[in-house]
């Protein structure tokens, strides 16, 4: 068991950090008791709005010596309860550590503090003619959070995920020691990659205080095609064919009309086309007008051969805005359409996406509940939402558990995994355990023990 925070602890914390940044009891607002999905709730005893690595190191040293649990929180946009203080204790909030420290144009890297928001980093990079390719839908997430979940996003088809863009990290270990992992280097065969272990560890192994991220030159042209299909099956079954055609696409997104209609009412803005039941949104980028045009034309032709009703051109800022804004709002829009929901962020091999989506449609019918979905069809990562709507509490819990266990079982059958980009956190622990089995979970526990023998950093998460 952990030690409960007492007044002596608070006095000490206030002696090393400004009073007004150390909050306790009723000073901590409700927002800090949960993350974006909201169904896992627990307040920290103390909330510290940290400003520097030194502060974090001092707090960790103290917490480790006094057996107090610590959880790190960025913007709180997580979806699996990873940043919820389920054991109380100390919460370190990093959004004040939001400086972009250096742009190194010779090494093509940018060095940032963990609280920098993804949208601010993207804008900074673009204003210097660079691209930070990871592009998760939640733009107000912090980079620290993105690294901790190995966030993916829509450009993963061509550019990969957050892990592929982290060159180096500075971290505070659970005992307060500070270590640098990786660096501004491109290659690294120097022992185990502790850097990669830290990425995606959901705040359980160390606290990121600085990140060196890789940038690429900004492609001059980025255009999309919005492709309507006469049926969900036709749309989703076109994806493997498009991939097989070797088209060089940055993003392949799939969504159904239902999601568009929700986002229309959520944003109060009409989508350019809602005449078809299913859509693919395909993006091409490049530096040569002719090459991009040819690519778009051949993909449009292919889609129409595969049964698409048309292929609409999304080329200007205004058109991109009208389409991508709606796409970016799907999660919030589906959330606003129901009383409560839970999300399955499953990932399957790309050629199994259609089978999985069709399975969720059958499941919705079988269980008599609504299961809308959308997702990154091009990389096999789907976001499937089980909606409570008007169900009573008991029935909801029962059907939710049933729907989830069936979906993860199906994912396993298709050689998929529990989470593509949102992580395991608290909410999906059991499903990961079921899928990985004891051996892999024990290996993970062993790693955790080496980093954090007293189990004070984000305990109760992942396993």
């Amino acid at each position, binding site marked *: 068991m952990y030690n409960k925070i007492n007044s002596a602890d608070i006095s000490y914390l206030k002696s090393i950090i400004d009073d007004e940044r150390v909050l306790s009891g009723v000073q901590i607002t409700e927002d800090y008791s949960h993350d974006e999905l909201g169904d896992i709730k627990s307040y920290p005893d103390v909330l510290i709005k940290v400003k520097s690595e030194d502060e974090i190191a001092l707090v960790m040293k103290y917490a480790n010596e006094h057996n107090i649990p610590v959880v790190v929180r960025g913007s709180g*946009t997580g979806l699996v309860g990873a940043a919820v203080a389920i054991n109380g204790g100390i919460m370190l909030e990093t959004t004040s550590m939001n400086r972009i420290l250096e742009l190194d144009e010779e090494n093509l890297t940018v060095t940032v503090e963990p609280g920098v928001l993804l949208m601010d980093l993207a804008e900074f990079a673009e204003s210097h003619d660079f691209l930070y390719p990871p592009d998760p839908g939640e733009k107000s997430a912090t980079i620290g959070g993105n690294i901790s979940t190995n966030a993916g996003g829509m450009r993963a088809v061509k550019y990969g995920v957050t892990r592929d863009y982290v060159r180096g990290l500075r971290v505070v270990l659970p005992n307060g020691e500070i270590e640098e992992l990786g660096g501004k280097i491109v290659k690294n065969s120097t022992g185990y990659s502790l850097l990669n272990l830290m990425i995606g560890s959901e705040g359980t192994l160390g606290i990121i205080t600085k990140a060196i991220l890789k940038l690429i030159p900004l492609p001059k042209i980025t255009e999309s*095609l*919005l492709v309507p299909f006469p049926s969900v099956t036709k749309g989703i079954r076109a994806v493997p064919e498009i991939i097989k055609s070797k088209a060089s696409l940055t993003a392949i997104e799939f969504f159904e009309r239902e999601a568009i209609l929700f986002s229309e009412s959520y944003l109060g803005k009409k989508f350019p086309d809602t005449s078809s039941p299913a859509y693919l949104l395909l993006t091409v980028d490049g530096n040569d007008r002719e090459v991009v045009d040819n690519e778009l034309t051949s993909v449009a*032709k292919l889609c129409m051969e595969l049964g698409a009703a048309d*292929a*609409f*051109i999304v*080329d200007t*800022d205004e058109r991109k805005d*009208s389409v991508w804004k709606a796409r970016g709002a799907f999660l919030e829009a589906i959330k606003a359409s129901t009383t409560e929901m839970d999300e399955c962020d499953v990932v399957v091999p790309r050629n199994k996406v259609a089978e999985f989506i069709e399975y969720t449609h059958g499941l919705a019918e079988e269980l008599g509940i609504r299961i809308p979905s959308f997702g990154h069809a091009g990389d096999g990562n789907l976001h499937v939402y089980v909606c409570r709507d008007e169900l009573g509490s008991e029935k909801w819990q029962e059907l939710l558990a049933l729907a989830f266990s069936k979906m993860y079982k199906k994912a396993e059958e298709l050689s998929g995994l529990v989470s593509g980009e949102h992580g395991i956190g608290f909410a999906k622990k059991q499903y990961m355990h079921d899928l990985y089995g004891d051996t892999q979970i024990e290996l993970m526990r062993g790693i955790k023990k080496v980093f954090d023998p007293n189990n004070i950093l984000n305990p109760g998460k992942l396993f």
Partner: protein
Amino acid sequence: MKIIVCVKQVPGTSNVEVDPVTGVLKRDGLCAKLNPYDLFALETGFRLKEKSGGEITTISMGPPQAKESLLETVYMGADNGVLLSDRAFAGADVQATSYALKTGVEKIGKYDLIICGKQTTDGDTAQVGPELAEQLGIEHAANVISVDEIDGEYITVTVNLDSVYQTQKMKLPCLITIEKDACTPRLPSFKRKFATSPDAVVVYTAKDLDNLDAERCGLKGSPTQVERIFPPEAGGDRVIFNSGDELSDKLFDILSEKKFL
């Protein structure tokens, strides 16, 4: 019903650089696009055609490459396009532009309705539409947010006068300019693109236009003298005028969007 929609090709980016010495827009290497305001005019036209049938012709004055923008209107839903392109038209201000468009419209022939965007993103005058109506001697309404009714004889529209909305009934033929965000414009279609012949857009030079008075065209026909062009200062904070509940709702939305709440 015969509808004419006026469009313009403008620089493809809002980050237009202005040469600090000459005050001229640096167009080199810039991609071009349809004036975003014109998309609402086009969409209004397409919807009227869907409802009442007829034909939509788009018209533009510009350099030869503006043909691309007119073809794009065909990919969106227009039946055909007309480009007025001649060195004689170059350097035109609003008066000379609307004069050239007038002769172009007369060349197209009989029409029931002319639709323009409210303004362009490069010139920003919002005057060409109303001035074209004056040159043609027809009625017009600017800043239209909706077409409420149309029959063979009259059109009823709602006009945004900032502090009030005004309903206006006009006899056809007439001209309307469409307010930004009056509707969501449709996207250009590859299906239509594959089916479109390049002949869908005809190009007229000065000599193709009947009764054209060369003195009223281009730089010669432009009473406006440009002293200096400079980009407007980028807007910073927003000022929102509204009252009570509406204002608090708007503020709440903005703060939520920025994740302050």
